[in-house]
């Protein structure tokens, strides 16, 4: 196990390097000039050049790349060029807002989708099954934008149950007042595809021989579903959750823009618009690393859940 873990950690390095190179060169050659953006509309060429000197943009490309790599290795992310706030501080202050919204969404989605999918799988083939499937296809085809617009209009503007937008410093107020509407909208959007997916997993399990054997031995359908099928279907479900987990840390920039939540997703949109390299690069590295670590943990968890799995 230790050898496997070490090997996986070692394999992450080329990928991280690739991410660094891709992000660095993409924004260097195609992004807007940060010195110009920071200088503003009325800056003179000398001022812009001075800014460029200060940011180190006039140095040769490989030197800038080398500085950047040194920064990553020493975990010194530097400061945002637009707001002069330290990047680590930026992340630390934005991440809680993102998590306050995204974690409840993930938990609610999974805990609602599993019973729905199980219930639908139990009545597979019937009219209920086909109706639910068609309804979820229709629900998925409506854009998230429509759900947000209508949700804000109906629940916030008309009924007044929640504020339309906003955020506070207190976690409790956020959870009870400001977060419920975005959470509700996001769960409503995501529940249909998750239910469909989990239903596929459950049906796959139900098709196996051991279920037929259990039925022949006289087990009730309920016990079969809850004790056997559910457990065996957890592996693909876990894979699905682990794929969604890095997304939880990125945040949904749409939700954050619509509901004025000061989260990471919105920061990224702002940083890209301002060509704020330190923030963009730090974000890319952070998410790339997180994705790979989550993949690694999932693979290790497979071994725990299913002892037959051999980790190569």
């Amino acid at each position, binding site marked *: 196990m230790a050898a496997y873990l070490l090997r996986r950690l070692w394999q992450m390095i080329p990928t991280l390097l*690739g991410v660094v190179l891709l992000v660095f060169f993409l924004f260097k050659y195609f992004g807007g000039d940060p010195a110009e953006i920071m200088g503003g509309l009325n800056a003179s060429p000398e001022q812009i050049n001075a800014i460029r000197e200060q940011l180190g943009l006039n140095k040769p490309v490989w030197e800038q790349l080398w500085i950047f790599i040194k920064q990553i290795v020493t975990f010194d992310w530097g400061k945002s060029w637009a707001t002069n706030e330290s990047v680590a501080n930026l992340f630390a202050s934005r991440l809680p807002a993102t998590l306050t919204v995204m974690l409840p969404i993930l938990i609610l989605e999974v805990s609602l989708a599993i019973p729905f999918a199980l219930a639908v799988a139990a009545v597979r083939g019937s009219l209920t099954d086909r109706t639910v499937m068609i309804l979820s296809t229709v629900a998925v085809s409506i854009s998230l*934008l429509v759900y947000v617009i209508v949700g804000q209009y109906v629940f916030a503007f008309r009924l007044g149950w929640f504020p339309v937008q906003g955020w506070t410093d207190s976690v409790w107020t956020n959870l009870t007042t400001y977060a419920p509407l975005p959470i509700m909208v996001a769960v409503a959007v995501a529940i249909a595809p998750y239910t469909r997916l989990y239903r596929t997993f459950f049906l796959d399990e139900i098709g196996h021989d051991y279920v037929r054997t259990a039925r022949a031995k006289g087990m009730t359908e309920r016990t079969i579903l809850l004790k056997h099928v559910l457990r065996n279907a957890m592996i693909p479900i876990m894979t699905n959750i682990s794929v969604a987990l890095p997304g939880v840390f990125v945040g949904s920039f749409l939700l954050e823009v619509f509901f004025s939540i000061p989260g990471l997703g919105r920061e990224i949109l702002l940083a890209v618009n301002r060509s704020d390299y330190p923030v963009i690069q730090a974000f890319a590295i952070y998410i790339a690393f997180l994705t790979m670590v989550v993949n690694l943990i999932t693979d290790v968890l497979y071994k725990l859940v299913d002892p037959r799995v051999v980790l190569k």
Partner: protein
Amino acid sequence: MSAVMSSPTPSAGNPKAQKSEGVWAASWRRMKADKVGMVSMAIVAFFLLMVIASASGLLAKNWQKEVGVPNAPPTFMGPAPAEATGVIAQPKGPNVDLSDIDPLAPKYKEWEERASKFKTEDVVKAETLPLGGDRLGRDVLAKVIKGAEVSILVGVLAAVVATIIGTVLGAISGFFGGKIGDFLEWLYNVFTAIPSILLIFAFAVIFGKGVLSVVMILGLAGWPGIYRLIRAEFMKHSVREYVRSAEAIGASRYSRMFKHILPNVSHVALVQLSLHVVSFIKSEVILSYLGLGVGVDQVSWGTMLSESQSELILGYWWQLVSVTALMAVFVTAFALFTDALRDALDPKLRGLE
């Protein structure tokens, strides 16, 4: 009694041998039996016809003309009630005659004669439009058809781009393996490790706005999914006997990849293409909403949704409902068609339905 069978048996020398139906014929037969699939295919075909008609100028050519009053309600609802004319009551009766002190009075007759020589068109703005009007008075029906053209075109083209890139790279990686396979695997890992929003924003910065840009953005962000599947298929097929036999009779590597293996793998690519069309149409809507999509002089479902947000507060719901309804119908039909396509092309996947 004859010991020989009367019907012709399939054999090499017999000219009347029965041909076994090909893969595509068998799939088409299975497709025809699926009612839901045929209905959704008909709906998708209808939309594609509408897109072609709109692109060639038959429909919705004048979507930009402001033919109605601003925010004209849909026809079935009747015209909007006239707004209050103001608190000051208009006096009735003829105006006082001012011609003795009016310095311009002698010129009026001459000016009227000159003006009557010009033809003026009195544009009467319609009170109601079939599906209502937006805030400038443009016909929502024309906009929604034109928007369908742009959104569907973007979705289909982006899916084609992503599928071509993913298939070619997957074929090379799966067939050759070795160093080039490792390099492509590394490229795949890098692309999937970068969060997709960052990738999309980065490409949006590179390519700018416009239909072609959105196609490139989505295509370049979406190829990894297809690459993975095609690579697995090519790895599986490249060790099969028919490929080995082709190699034995001297088929080149290029010929083996694209003439022999690709047709056997094309059903996977086709299904992935359909899935990506749906997902790219939805992504385009969001990109256009954020302002990173099509240019300002074009309309797409995303731009219509961004307008409808501010209209909804004022109570004008028709643009939102038209776009949502049309998009829901098309995306649902396309998704059901994709399911039917997958079942028809590969019955082994049935049972997961």
